[in-house]
């Protein structure tokens, strides 16, 4: 529908998922993916990735260091729907099941240069205490159907009318932080 070479602008993102602070957990790995609007399309690089499992550093910081690189280029015609990076961190629970330890999302920085973002992580809470227990016991914590919903607003406002509010209290079980330096160019 457009001419042969439509004008676009490019957004190049270099960066890495540097480290995380999950004081209670260890041996975590991290997935990332991008959420962007209709006018955006990835042209190069990986849109999603999954990192290695890392253990806590032995020093005082207790940081989980991944240094997992991100390199992706988008093209777009419209700033609307600026890409967001969605991170989800997983790790084994006491029974060895992989459970989600945190979700988080942040917009790719708008200005060129080196940026560092710290993302607070959260997980959805069980709807009831019993479910909390069983989910813990069975190792099947509530998780999002798709991590991308973290970056999307739709459905949340309506859902509130349908579902008791408490279910939407997404508790951050601990102050968990992810460091993400970006170098958009």
């Amino acid at each position, binding site marked *: 529908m457009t*001419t042969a070479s439509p*004008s676009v602008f490019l957004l190049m993102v270099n960066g890495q998922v540097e480290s995380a602070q999950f004081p209670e957990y260890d041996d975590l790995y991290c997935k990332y993916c991008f959420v962007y609007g209709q006018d955006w399309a990835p042209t190069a690089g990986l849109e999603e990735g999954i990192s290695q499992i890392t253990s806590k550093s032995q020093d005082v910081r207790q940081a989980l260091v991944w240094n997992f690189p991100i390199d992706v280029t988008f093209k777009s*015609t419209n700033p609307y729907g600026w890409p967001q990076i969605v991170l989800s961190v997983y790790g084994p629970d006491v029974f060895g099941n992989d459970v989600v330890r945190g979700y988080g999302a942040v917009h790719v920085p708008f200005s060129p240069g080196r940026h560092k973002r710290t993302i607070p992580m959260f997980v959805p809470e069980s709807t009831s205490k019993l479910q909390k227990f069983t989910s813990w016991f069975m190792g099947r914590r509530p998780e999002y159907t798709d991590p991308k919903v973290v970056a999307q607003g739709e*459905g949340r406002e309506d859902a509130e009318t*349908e579902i008791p509010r408490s279910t939407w209290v997404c508790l951050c079980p601990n102050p968990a932080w992810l460091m993400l330096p970006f170098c958009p160019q």
Partner: protein
Amino acid sequence: MNPREEKVKIITEEFIENDEDADMERQKKNSKVRRQPRKKQPPTTVPEEMVSEKSHLGNQQEPVQEEPKTYLLSMTARRGPRSLPPIPSTSRTGFAEFSMRGRMREKLQAARSKAESALLQEMPTPRPRRLRSPSKKELETEFGTEPGKKVESTQQEIDSQSHSRVKFRDSARKIKPKPQVPPGFPSAEEAYNFFTFNFDPEPEDSEKKTKASHREGTNQEEEEGEEEEPPAQGGGKETDEEELLNGDDAEDFLLGLDHMVDDFIAVRPADYESIHDRLQMEREMLFIPSRQAVPTYKKLPENVQPRFLEDEGLYTGVRPEVSRTNQNIMENRLLVQDPERRWFGDDGRILALPNPIKPFPSRPPVETQELSIKGELETMYKKAVKYVHSSQHMIRSGDPPGNFQLDIDISGLLFTHHPCFSREHVLAAKLAQLYDQYLARHQRNKAKFLTDKLQALRNAVQTGLDSEKPHQSPDTIQKTINDYKSEIRQTRKLRDAEQEKDRTLLKTIIKVWKEMKSLREFQRFTNTPLKLVLRKEKVDQKADEEAYEAEIQVEISELLEEHTEEYAQKMEEYRTSLQQWKAWRKAQKAKKKKRKQAAEEHPYDETEEPYPEEDLVKPIPPEPTDRAVIEQEVRERATQSRRRPGEPMLVPELSLAGSITPNNQCPRAEVLRREDVKKRSLYLKVLFNNKEVSRTVTRPLGADFRVHFGQIFNLQIVNWPESLALQVYETIGHSGPTLLAEVFLPIPETTVFTGRAPIEEMEFSSNQHVTLDHEGVGSGVPFSFEADGSNQLILMTSGKVSHSVAWAIGENGIPLIPPLSQQNIGFRSALKRADAISSIGTSGLTDMKKLAKWAAESKLDPNDPNNAPLMQLISVATSGESYVPDFFRLEQLQQEFNFVSDQELNRSKRFRLLLLRSQEVPEFRNYKQIPVYDREIMEKVFQDYEKRLRDRNVIETKEHIDTHRAIVAKYLQQVRESVINRFLIAKQYFLLADMIVEEEVPNISSEGSGILGLSLFKLAEQKRPLRPRRKGRKKVTAQNLSDGDIKLLVNIVRAYDIPVRKPAVSKFQQPSRSSRMFSEKHAASPSTHSPNHNADYPLGQVLVRPFVEVSFQRTVCHTTTAEGPNPSWNEELELPFRAPNGDYSTASLQSVKDVVFINIFDEVLHDVLEDDRERGSGIHTRIERHWLGCVKIPFSTIYFQARIDGTFKIDIPPVLLGYSKERNMILERGFDSVRNLSEGSYITLFITIEPQLVPGESVQEKFESQEDEKLLQASEKFQAECAFKFPNRQCLTTVIDINGKTVFITRYLKPLNPPEELLSVYPNNLQATAELVARYVSLIPFLPDTVSFAGICDLWSTSDQFLDLLAGDEEEHAVLLCNYFLSLGKKAWLVMGNAIPEGPTAYVLTWEQGHYLIWNPCSGHFYGQFDTFCPLKNVGCLIGPDNIWFNIQRYDSPLRINFDVTKPKLWKSFFSRSLPYPGLSSVQPEELIYQRSDKAAAAELQDRLEKILKEKIMDWRPRHLTRWNRYCTSTLRHFLPLLEKSQGDDVEDDHRAELLKQLGDYRFSGFPLHMPYSEVKPLIDAVYSTGVHNIDVPNVEFALAVYIHPYPKNVLSVWIYVASLIRNR
């Protein structure tokens, strides 16, 4: 050891101090003793006292004390010796022992027996204390007593108890008589006491004590040493001691009591005071305020009336609520306590501030949730913000920092009354005032002005009368003259009034002056320099008289004129009224006549009153003639108000030239007054915004009661002034200043600058009451000028301040005024702050009038200071002074932010595209990458959309070919839109499950997951069980899908009874075939192949080599080829799914109309070898595929069913040339309950979508209904009960009609007449008719509701609507069929249940003789109850015209249930005895009216269709030539009507014969397709799916014939015969 030592030291020091006292005491001896006794020794029994206090009697004491000492020693061996020292220091340590003793007495008693042994031990120990003593002494000498005291305080914690005791001891000790001084003995005892005292109170310290006691022993020694010191300080100390004593009284008293209880047991009768006495006493002592209301006069000063401020209009505020009784009590108490009544206000009530409680909370409510509380408590740190100014009217930050200046010039003060005024002053002030008034009047000289005006008017009238002609018509002139005249009258009155005022003023001035003069004479001194001189201006007597007379004459004439006018007017009135009266009278008389005489009186009375007779007389008197009277009047008035002619004009002149009598000539009272005046001085405070900013110097009050200040204050201000006030303070002598009054100055206009501001005078007054004891008249006090004291005057202090306020002008000539925006003082600026909009130029207050009205209605207290700005605003607004815009502007900044004009913006294609996308217009909803530039957007993007918009109202005939359907399509479109609007809300309706995956709570009742324990048990299960069970797939919501994510999986398992090829036929073989068929008819085994056919095939091929091709959305997949009529493929085909417009939302998916075609083909290998000779060396075959049949499954069915699993009947064309069903031999169709299983071919399929999509939930919405509420409730209950028992069985009681209303389902069932045409075909064969009717119904196109009404909402249309729409889903078909059957007289029910592949659906059940038949209304087929291939798999409920029966049997498969609805154990009926059928009227029409089918239109359509299809087939073969065999086509065309007639039965053989006869040379493959007609597209698809066009044999020819048979109501049956012909060589 150290700390301990210190402690001990401290103690000793204290002791020492006390010792000194003791020393003195000793010296004073007896005298002291005498002093002490008052303390605590009531003269009780002697002996005990003596024991307790040795002070009383020395002799007795000694022995007693001796004893204790010894005992103690025995107790603690070490202690004893230390305390022993027999040195005469006894008196010193005394204090300690006293305190001790009180405590220790009992213990001492107990220890007595051991005393002697202790004594013995005393001797050896003196040494250690000796050693220590020097250091002690040093301490002592160095620090004296003072440091010791200090330390003591620190130590208090340790033994505060003992300290207090020490104190009483102190005092107690003083009682001690000196005689006991004798050295040694008493001292030892005292020492002992001392120790015991010290430690006893803290028993746990016993160890310490022993150590400490050691120390104390040494102390003792020091004391000894000290003792020797002369008690030099003694004298001074003693007095102190005395004071101390007093202070300790109370403690001593307590101590004494202690003693009493312990030691002095006095037996006395219990004290009893009679209650009476007690009450008496209490009455004396206590005051109980009465609860009676206090009369107001008591609360107010004498002779003062209560004054209610509120009634006077002052704001008082709301008093806090206090109960009446409490108020009374308080008032009574206050009256007694505070006789000055300061607590009572003017209204006689207790003074009270307004209620401080706010009616609403000023703090936001705290949510009670835990979390929020936590949040609430969290401290938030904010950066410190510089607080600029407190006032709300401060200058905005944007303004230049205010260095504005207001100059206030206070020049002086003048009292118009002052307490120190003498009587003369009062008069003088009055005179001055009057004179001022006179001057003012004189200056204006209104009388003169009015006189002149009068003159001018008269002249005008005169001239007007004279020279009227030239210009105007007489009318207008008359009018103007009249106007003049009336004005003359007006002016004359005014002038008279003015003149009178002038005259009276003059008179008063003279009178006051006379009074003053007489007063001066009377008191024989002069206080004021005032002097009035009346200057007489001579006038020319004659001229004056003439003028006077002329004036009077003129006036008289005017008055006369006036009177005559009046008279004329009155006459006129009189006449008319008279006439009226007469007429009335006449009527009255007529009435009277009619009436009887008796009634006469009464009406007469009534008429008497309104008589105008009296009026009639009055106007007649000759007033006009009585000039004398008028003249009289005029003259009288003139004399009163005017100077008499010839009288000199008096001009008063007030001067200050008079001399004041010096003090020495005045009487004493006057001198006092003058001195008092001199003592007084005044100053002014300048208050800016209620804050004092400066004050004037204090100036003495002059004798003339003037104060000159002449000061200019330059106020540097930042804020726009709110208020500016001066406070007048007066000081008398050396006493403090008193506030006399407050003067509020107006804030100057911005145009008033320094230098130009006039000096203004502001009056003030004070309400102080002053009475003076000299000549001064005081203030607020009545006084009189008369000797007898009558005619009293009360004057209040008052005066004037002359000042000027102006804005200063800066150095460069710029006025230092706050900017203009601030100029709207007070309310405007205040509101601006509050109103964000007004701050940018417009006011948020839209309607002042309304506001004022509201204020009036809500009864705002105008006096409440809180409402002040509002009231001011209202008053200003209503008076119209303030500019209030009469418009209200929204988005007032929009203009500024518009970077492009609206038109331009609308022209932008990109913007439009973005807009359309955000509006979710279907064409653009999923538009990706909207181009950046307009030029990159092609116009054609919008073309489709615009076309759609244009065409919305245009009926497109191209697509639909016949107009009726086009209309229907349009109608459907409209219904769809309305339904979409209704369900728009339900869009984007996410559930928790859509967002979050969460394990369900283990349910106890469900068998699968079981109890929690069971599921836990599952944990122990093997991870990879040997026999895995199918797990439910993960469902995917539609939101995150994109193209290619969804796949359609089709698993083709096997097929049964595929038609087999017939041997390559020739003309000659025909007879044999028929015979074979006959023979095969009774073949027993359906599965047996007929191997004999093999022989017929030249290549030895099997009977049939079928494969399955699945086409969906133009994607085609096919299986491998299997062999034989019962092939088994077991293959999975995967087809991609693409949603329309890339929209994968639920709403979009469920309206996908695409159909999955599953076609079964026969793969035929043709030997193309031209030459038999080559057969040995190679194989040349051509593969041909022959269509055998198909199964069509709509995508929507798959979408809703999630998976389709089952065996389906293959739709095989009635005529399949070249193929035959092997066992197609059942002759008796229909009603045979044991129908052959193998009729038709079947295929087993499994279809699903990967990933599994979640179908949208149906909206559980309450629709309005016209049904009876009871019925609705009953139906809800019924459904709930049914759902509880059998949740999987469909139960329907109410449905939604096409208008969106809830309708009870039975209303849809009612006998309806089928078309006559159909009935007449088989008039005698009911069964045939039934089949025909079913066929008719099945010919109406099927269109699921979900497709037509993009929501999950099953709409039921009535049969006539259905026939009009010519589209509907199972329900409509079933209802119509059921109604037809009912009208045919059958017993028929609607069956709600599940079928394959439709899912929940509706079938029709009929009762035929002895057995039930199940009809599929959409296909027209019927099945016996026990037919295994019946697509209906389970039955939920049956619906008849008057009842609903729910299946409560164990099974729900039609094979296993009993359809006898009369058995309540098997069928639960809705209407029963408890709820009888109320006789619901049907929603169906009375009768269906069928139009005769339009044959011409059908024929036309037929031709067009044929043309279209031919074109299509040619399109599909782009690389090949498509030849049409016209001969064959015409043959086929003739053949099709026959098919229609016979419904495809039993025509094949004839047809074949025919064809063979005609096309002998061709190899023929073809088949007729039969479909109901809805649109062209499905027909094309069907033809395409057969793959006829795929033959690429070079010499192939095609034949295509279309036949449309019209049925009533435009139901069209379409036959398409497609064939390919290959010429045989």
